């Protein structure tokens, strides 16, 4: 979750030709064993799975659709509807819970009107609390928004984070729509005490963690940074 590539583009349909392609990659192992990897790829690529994909995979792997469906519904990583463009992950591991995630959850629920695992009606924000420890408990409570981590989050900061998403979306809509577009198009209600200064503060402390693939790509690029190319004589 933490450094996995997210798929923010909202796909509404799963391309069944692509599903067949994915199934073909797993012909060398038994169909039962291939089931999970196939759906993990679909989930990774589209952000959700659906019944059409279930039937197609069942057909391709010669399994019964019921078995496919029963397996998929057991694991929580498979989502049955497309996720939002922005994701708010709230760590509810015991370390974070001890330092007060209940309040953060309430902030999200009250401002966005969505509960755990739900997406706002316009498909912009998904809220996902989860209880598997992310291993960064010294920062608890920990919130991940679109791949960026924020530690020691309190209610004010949670509000700022939501404002930040709001602003991104709002600005984008501004550019698309007329210049006189009004605040009524804002995604969510603005927080009572959130100004630009506080948001800038959040942006400053944000740390974008490059994913491993990004990192590797940078390494393999010929123009990539080479610390050794520095001249040994110059200080």
């Amino acid at each position, binding site marked *: *979750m*933490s*450094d*996995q590539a997210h798929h923010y583009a909202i796909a509404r349909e799963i391309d069944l030709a692509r599903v067949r392609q994915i199934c073909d990659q797993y012909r060398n192992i038994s*169909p*039962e*064993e*291939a089931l*999970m990897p196939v759906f*993990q790829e679909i989930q990774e690529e589209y952000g959700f799975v659906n019944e059409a994909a279930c039937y197609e995979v069942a057909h391709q792997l010669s*399994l019964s659709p019921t*078995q496919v469906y*029963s*397996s998929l519904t*057991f*694991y*929580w*990583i*498979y989502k049955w509807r497309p996720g939002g463009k922005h994701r708010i992950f709230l760590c*509810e*591991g*015991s*370390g974070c*819970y*001890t*330092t007060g995630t*209940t*309040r953060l959850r309430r902030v999200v629920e009250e401002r966005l009107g969505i509960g755990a695992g739900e997406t706002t009606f316009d498909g912009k924000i998904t809220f996902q609390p989860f*209880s*598997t*420890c*992310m*291993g*960064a*408990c*010294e*920062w*608890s409570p*920990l919130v991940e928004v679109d791949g960026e*981590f924020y*530690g020691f989050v309190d209610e004010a900061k949670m509000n700022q984070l939501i404002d930040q998403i709001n602003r991104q979306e709002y600005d984008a809509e501004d550019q698309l729509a007329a210049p006189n577009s009004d605040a009524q198009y804002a995604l969510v209600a603005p927080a009572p005490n959130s100004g630009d200064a506080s948001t800038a503060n959040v942006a400053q402390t944000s*740390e*974008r*963690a*490059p994913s*491993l693939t990004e*990192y*590797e790509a*940078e*390494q*393999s690029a010929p123009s990539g*940074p*080479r*610390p*050794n190319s*520095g*001249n*040994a004589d*110059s*200080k």
Partner: protein
Amino acid sequence: MSMSSIDMATGAERAIEKMNDRAAFEQVAQNETARWQREYNNVERPTVLIGISGSSVAHGAWKVYFEFVNQLKQRGIAADVRVVSEMGTNWAMPVVDIIKPGGPRIAYQIITADKVGALIDRAIVGDERGDMSGDPLKDIVPLCVYGHEAWDGATARVGDIPLAKELPFYEVQQRILMRDFGYLNPRNIYDYIGRGGYSSLIKAMFDMPPTDIIDTVKKSNLRGRGGAGFPAGIKWEGARNAKGEPKYVVCNAHEGEPNVFKDRRSMEGEPHMLIEGMIIEAFAIGSHIGYIYIGDEYPLAIRTMEHAVEQARAAGFLGKNILGSGYDLDIQVYMGGGAYISGEASALQFGIEGQRAMPRTKPPRSVEAGVWGKPTCVNNVETMMYVPDIIRHGADWFLALGTAKSPGTKMVTLMGLPKYVGLSEVPLGTTMRDIVFKVGGGIRNDRPFKAIQTGGTSGGLMLDNHLDLQLTFDNGPQDMGSVKGVLGSGGFVVYDDSVSIVDMTRYWMRFNRYESCGKCVPCRIGTKSLLDILDRIATGLGRVEDMDALKEWSEHVISMSLCGLGQAAPLPTLSAIELFRDEFMEAILNQNDPTGRNEALVAIQQRRRLEPGYGRLPLLAASNGSGQGKVITLTPVNR
């Protein structure tokens, strides 16, 4: 140096030569040890080491890495930047270590990307050491001095900077599995070979018959580190003697508890140690197929593990005819779907088979009928990581560690509200007081200690007067098991007096109720009913009989559930109602929460200030709360 340090940072660009026999391996091992000496122990240029793990990445460790690389290049400073695994000092992240030629290895804490320039100025270009605080934004505070070979190898302080061994966090630690954390690059197999890795595999494969390997592990009394503490050697023997082909070896890397990250960190930090242990185990029981079953929540661990398996395959440690011994083994990294119950051994096998990961009745145990109905040996990551060292040093070496019944060391994650949140490795037999007040450094903000939650989601609480008990798997009078403390997978949560136990008990039950697979009735309905009661108490609707009901129903769930999840799910509740009875009674009788953290009760109290008498007190029932009487019907209180 022939290789650029970036190549070594990723370990990806160096071509891996396949080793076809023992002699080839020994040649490589010799070269790599020499390389290690040359490039790590006696550095020729200033070297920056950055620890990468799931959580340091969250703190922006990659950003720090790129900042170092770019700034050093721009300023034309000759220095190396290396990626290493991470020490486990979470509270000080991101940690940056600097070695100058002929100098010690000094770790600096909380080096965010904006401090990189200042650190280069003062510690690499300049020769400042010690506390460099002053400018409030660019405070650079050293953490400690590490040795070049091992974390406790440093002998002399540098100015005021303490040795690693002198930090309270490290004081009681003994790092066996974690000895290379912070030293080798997890993405470079040659680093591991240079540190003596894979030599146990050679010893096991060429010098020991499989039965000897099993005897050694049996004699060492290596107990399963996943939670149950079942002796690994006995399991191996069962798997070896079981009838059926093929046999499978499965590494249970599906951790999933909300307060444990030791397996995750192990796989991110030292994947080859796990692979080596797994090959030895597979060789000993005569298996040719291995799975590493990792939960989906651990992306970095999955990638590191997959990369490590590919490297091991390219180097000839996996595949056909390993090192010319005639033995074949292939290991596959298998990603689970993120259900906590998948970590149960029999559930895990169904997970690999693409079914719902639900446990089944035992016997037959998984060593007789596991994956695809064939004999399967399932071991935890930490258990497997111990195997190379036991083979290398012998069973007696291992028995000398820890206590008589629970030998060895244990990786422990400490979280909640201690000063030092992190991953540590302590010998078994360490007292809980040392764990809380030395490894954990006491409570944050110097608040009073309230309790420590043991054993992941499924252990009891321990109070201050229990802290002199020892960390073991056993139930003796000196062991933590005597007061419902469970070592389990080694996850501990420390609470200060601001934490509401009623709320936390509800949290644990909510987790177990959510993760219950629903196969057996006692667990499916029992956890739900217990959660209902706890919800009721936590929202001010509790009744005195609830205390009896909690106790009795908990016992039912424990005695009748099918698998470990149900059998352990009510343990925190049982322990909490025993140790914190007053807090529960306060919540039931006065709808009050002394800690002020239980929000529903706080709301009731606030309203009562405006409307005296708001919220009727529940009627006292005939029970005296001892748990002896029969439970009276539990009709919801109409409010």
